[in-house]
């Protein structure tokens, strides 16, 4: 401990000596500015570099279920694709409109729907996509303080182990999901658009 502090003292003395060099002295304000800029840049870019997305987590179709007025609960859905090179476990979620959030799974057993909390978190293995979809795994938001209306967008924070926290926009919709009707209408819609586009091209 003592030796270390001495060495630091010696070093600082050396640096002082070095800084006494006229050229360095002349450049000091410039260097200070440069150092400040470097620190600023590091601070600015570091969170982005450390974010789960750049590490290889991808999120798609993040949606929230629109609720009736005064509804106590809602559900959130999304697709998580993991290419981080290791298993990422979704351990918690939080949103500004709900007091509590849990990660739930459901089991359909001879006509009975059973819902339960995934207490150890939802593990997404490397190179896999896990979908939270209607009639299956979902985020359950409890004690809502407002009605979630269609087309509203809310930031929801997800915490992954080990990569950390991610905040991303969730879109409120009445018919969440891509499976079944929603997916069908979507594809139909796209086909229709393509068709229209082609017709448009023909007319030219």
């Amino acid at each position: 401990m003592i030796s270390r502090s001495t060495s630091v003292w010696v070093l600082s003395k050396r640096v002082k000596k070095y800084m006494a060099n006229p050229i360095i002295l002349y450049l000091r304000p410039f260097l200070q500015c440069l150092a400040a800029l470097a620190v600023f840049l590091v601070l600015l870019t570091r969170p982005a570099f450390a974010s789960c997305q750049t590490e290889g987590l991808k999120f798609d179709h993040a949606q929230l279920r629109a609720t009736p007025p005064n509804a106590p609960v809602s559900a959130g859905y999304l697709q998580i694709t993991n290419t981080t090179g290791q298993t990422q476990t979704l351990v918690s979620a939080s949103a500004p409109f709900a007091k509590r959030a849990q990660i739930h799974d459901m089991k359909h057993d001879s006509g009975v729907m059973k819902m339960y909390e995934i207490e150890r978190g939802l593990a997404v293995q490397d190179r896999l996509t896990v979908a939270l979809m209607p009639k299956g795994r979902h985020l359950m938001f409890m004690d809502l303080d407002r009605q979630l209306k269609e087309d509203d967008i809310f930031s929801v924070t997800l915490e992954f182990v080990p990569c950390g926290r991610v905040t991303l926009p969730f879109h409120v919709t009445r018919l969440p999901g891509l499976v079944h009707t929603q997916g069908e209408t979507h594809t139909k819609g796209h086909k229709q658009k393509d068709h229209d586009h082609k017709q448009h091209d023909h007319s030219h």
Partner: protein
Amino acid sequence: MWGLGFVLLLGLAFSVSEYLARQWMPRTQTGFEIGAPFQLTDHTGQIVTEEIFTGRASAVFFGFTHCPEICPTTLNDLANARQALAEGREKLQIVFITLDPERDTVEVLKDFIPYFGEQVTGITGKPENVLELARDWGIFWERIQTSGGGYTLDHTATVFLLNEQGRMTGTIDIAEPPDVVEAKLKKLVTRL
């Protein structure tokens, strides 16, 4: 002697006429009897009895409003499938019966039910009476404590399809895709 013959003849004629009637008369009674008489409250605060199931077809679902997933999904799916019917839409109603009458009061259902469209009725009432109705329908439910101190319900998620006489003619399973749901509702209303 003549008297006995007359009685026998009368009996035979009655049997034959009964047989012919059963053969030729259209079958008016299809489906199975389900449930039992009840008197509860609907989401507007009006008294509702088993008569709600007669006069038009019904899709009946048991659930609760603290249900984040399967209850709103099912109600949305039913409402959409009903809306997609080319004709006979008005002959079909959706009935939601709560399995959580303590939390799902008339006030709660008043906000919840109209959100899922027209012709949707919510049923609640005194907890013991509501749960008796659920038992009469053979519904399973169980309270599950959640980590935050609240509770949720595991419950039968089958949709019961009733004809206009209130007799059950089929069910919809939660895993069935929307086109199947739509086809079943279509069949239900075109049979009327």
